């Protein structure tokens, strides 16, 4: 059996793009086995088929027996879980796990709750690093390390802020009954 590993960055607002990507991989004969940190996707070769992949957001602690029973009874197989995202697949193409706007919006509200929880630590990191940069420790080695750290912290803050904004907008549109898609 030949497995194929791929690396891919996945941001919280790209869940629908992720679903299409996995369906495309399956249609080319690569079936997802699991996802692991920091974004390693493991596939195995399988018969090329058109199926459905859908991602739900439910951190593991919320994932109870009944949740699994309801998805299983509806014909969905749980493939794996990664960072609170539950990866499901259904043998038929074009299936949905959320069939109305309010329930789909509730999924994005759960993602927003997580992003809201990490936002303060992101802002703290930004403040601490920018202060260190401003106070300018000019020993050569240290300033390079500080610059790298600064860039990383800023990039991370921007990603969280962008995720928050995009997901908030999608949840609001769904609540107003206007599903726009990714």
């Amino acid at each position, binding site marked *: 059996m030949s497995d194929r590993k791929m690396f891919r960055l996945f941001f919280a607002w790209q869940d629908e793009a992720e679903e299409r990507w996995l369906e495309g991989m399956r249609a080319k004969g690569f079936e997802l086995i699991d996802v692991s940190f920091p974004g390693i996707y493991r596939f195995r070769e399988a018969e090329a088929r058109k199926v459905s992949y859908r991602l739900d957001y439910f951190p593991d602690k919320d994932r109870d*027996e*009944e949740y699994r*029973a*309801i998805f299983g009874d509806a014909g969905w197989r749980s493939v794996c879980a990664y960072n609170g995202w539950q990866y499901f697949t259904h043998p038929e193409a074009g299936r949905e796990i*959320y*069939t*109305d706007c309010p329930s789909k919006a509730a*999924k994005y509200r759960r993602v927003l709750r997580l992003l809201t929880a990490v936002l303060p630590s992101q802002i703290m990191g930004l403040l601490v690093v920018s202060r260190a940069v401003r106070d300018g420790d000019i020993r050569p080695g240290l300033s390079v390390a500080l610059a790298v750290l600064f860039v990383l912290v800023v990039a991370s803050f921007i990603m969280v802020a962008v995720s928050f904004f995009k997901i908030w907008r999608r949840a609001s549109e769904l609540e107003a009954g206007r599903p726009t898609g990714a």
Partner: protein
Amino acid sequence: MNTDIRKALPLTESTAYILLALREAAHGYRIMQAVETLSAGTVELGPGTLYGALAALEEQGLIEAAGREGRRKYYRLTEPGMEVLAAQAGRYGVFLEAWKRAPARGAGGGDDE
């Protein structure tokens, strides 16, 4: 309890059918089948939507747990749940009457200035 009932209204179409299916105790899978039959196939109920609706309805006290069978959990309608369902049915009834009274399009009357 009146305020609670008003707060729960209007129900989404899926939720209305879930409550209708729960006039007798049922688990998730049974509810999905019942909703399909009751709605004559017009309402598709995905598992994510169903799971979220059951959790919310239980929290609102409109349904309650009614035992387990393996991994499956049974639910049934509570008194407030029945009231909400009846109120929602009343709203659909009002709509249906309004629809029947409305003149058909193009059959005269619809295009007044």
